[in-house]
């Protein structure tokens, strides 16, 4: 294709949009609304995941050993645990360290009355997981390890966090699929109106000897442009809203700011921007190409 023809085709795509400006605006607005919801949802989801991940990092499993176990066996157990894929970090606490922490926290000066360590069987490994949903499997394994007396875990927290994560994933996927279907339908409708408005022009083009590609491409460009414009508007608004909401929450609810650790806007947009533009352009292309193939017999 010649450069001049390419520019002509792109210009015609813009002309199509301007010619049906109300329908084009309606399509752009709907795609914007869809992608705005998508963006908003994504921003909430990714921040929630961030909060969950932070919480997950605090979820630990504690392993206590059988009475009279040798230090060597404790080291061996430590090595076995470290090799597990679901384990992110293992911390060893000797009986002395446990007693010291306990006495400082609860007994204070009364601790001096103890000549021996009453918690001498309390040496343990504190295990932090890379994926909380693997906790049950890890616990089952740990319970089968020779020399392990007891495994303490926080199953309720782990299950609840894992469950919310999955639920949010499914809900967002469902909403996104519905929104995309609506957007494709709208783009298809706009392009179809464009085709019917330009029926005479298309006929003339056919008589003069325009190729299928030449006749069809302005409509595909129109769809892509609508999708592109429809993705830029929500990105700009979400950027503005996101930055302001973070500032607002951090200023007004300082108590929460310790709990809610928001992701920086750049991190959210590093994914949201290419995905939104990709979806916008993608549905624009898909909606128009399907319509053009179906309704534009050349």
């Amino acid at each position, binding site marked *: *294709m*010649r450069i*001049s*023809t390419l520019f*002509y085709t792109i210009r015609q795509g813009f002309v199509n949009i301007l*010619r049906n400006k109300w329908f084009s605006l309606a399509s752009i607005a709907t795609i914007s609304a869809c992608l705005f919801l998508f963006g908003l949802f994504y921003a909430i989801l990714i921040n929630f995941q961030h909060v969950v991940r932070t919480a997950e990092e605090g979820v630990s499993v504690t392993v206590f050993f059988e009475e009279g176990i040798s230090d060597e066996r404790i080291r061996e157990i430590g090595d076995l645990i470290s090799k597990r894929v679901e384990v992110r970090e293992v911390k060893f606490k000797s009986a002395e360290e446990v007693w010291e922490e306990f006495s400082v926290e609860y007994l204070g000066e009364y601790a001096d009355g103890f000549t021996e360590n009453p918690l001498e069987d309390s040496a343990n490994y504190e295990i932090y997981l890379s994926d909380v949903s693997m906790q049950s499997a890890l616990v089952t394994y740990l319970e089968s390890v020779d020399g392990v007396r007891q495994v303490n875990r926080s199953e309720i927290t782990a299950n609840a966090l894992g469950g919310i994560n999955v639920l949010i994933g499914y809900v967002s996927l469902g909403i996104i699929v519905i929104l995309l279907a609506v957007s494709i339908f709208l783009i298809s409708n706009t392009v179809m109106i464009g085709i019917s408005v330009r029926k*005479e*022009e298309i*006929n*003339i*083009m*056919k*008589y*003069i*000897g*325009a*190729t*299928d590609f*030449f006749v069809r491409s302005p409509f595909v460009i129109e769809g892509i442009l609508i999708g592109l414009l429809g993705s830029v508007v929500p990105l700009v608004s979400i950027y503005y809203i996101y930055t302001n909401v973070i500032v607002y929450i951090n200023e007004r609810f300082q108590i929460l700011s310790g709990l809610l650790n928001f992701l920086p806007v750049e991190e959210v947009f590093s994914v949201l921007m290419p995905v939104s533009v990709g979806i916008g352009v993608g549905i624009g292309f898909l909606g128009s190409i399907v319509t053009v193939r179906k309704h534009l017999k050349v």
Partner: protein
Amino acid sequence: MAGKKRVRRSSSESRDIIVLDNVSKSYSTGAPALNGVSIRIRKGEFVFVVGDSGSGKSTLIKLLLRELTPTSGGVWVNGEDVVRLKHRKIPKFRRNLGIVFQDFRLLKDRNVYENVAFAQRIIQVPTREIRKNVPAILSIVGLAGKYKAKPKQLSGGEQQRVALARALINKPSILLADEPTGNLDPKNSWEIMKLLEEINQNGTTVLVVTHNREIVNAMKKRVVTMKKGVIVSDEEKGGYIDED
């Protein structure tokens, strides 16, 4: 290969630019639009096709443009077997045909220049050549001063000149004119016919479908008369045959 064999007709026929060989066309509604029509038109000829409504003139034009295919028989245009022409080759085939309609079929939202340039754009002529070609063709049809006008600002005759300029700018070997004077007054009709004659004298084969008795009788060209889908007369320097 079979198509090629059909294209290469005998050497005595090689000057024929349009050949219809025993062509019949029936629509699904019933009565045949064309029934066993055979015509040969030589390169550089000027031919009138006359006949009443329903005589099959429009079907003939549509067959030549490959808008329709015949139910039986063969159609060759510019040496191309039109019946066997593949869909993807139709655009290139049509670029050798100029077409003018009774209702002009101009793009109403574009000016004269853009309407004519449009024909070059779709065959991907570089813009700098379009800028040279359009004014040249507009001056041939006498519209050099009106290149900025929109179709609705022009008279019927002027609009038909724009359509002619658009049909000619890609230098087609054949010009098909379907009732080109149907919407014009006698003065404009004559001017358009004079232009068509000039175009023909420059080597383009011209086929004009018309009802205009005065023009056909005055111009003394070949006249093919059709009635109810068959050719009832084909005369060199002929005239309009009355129905009665």
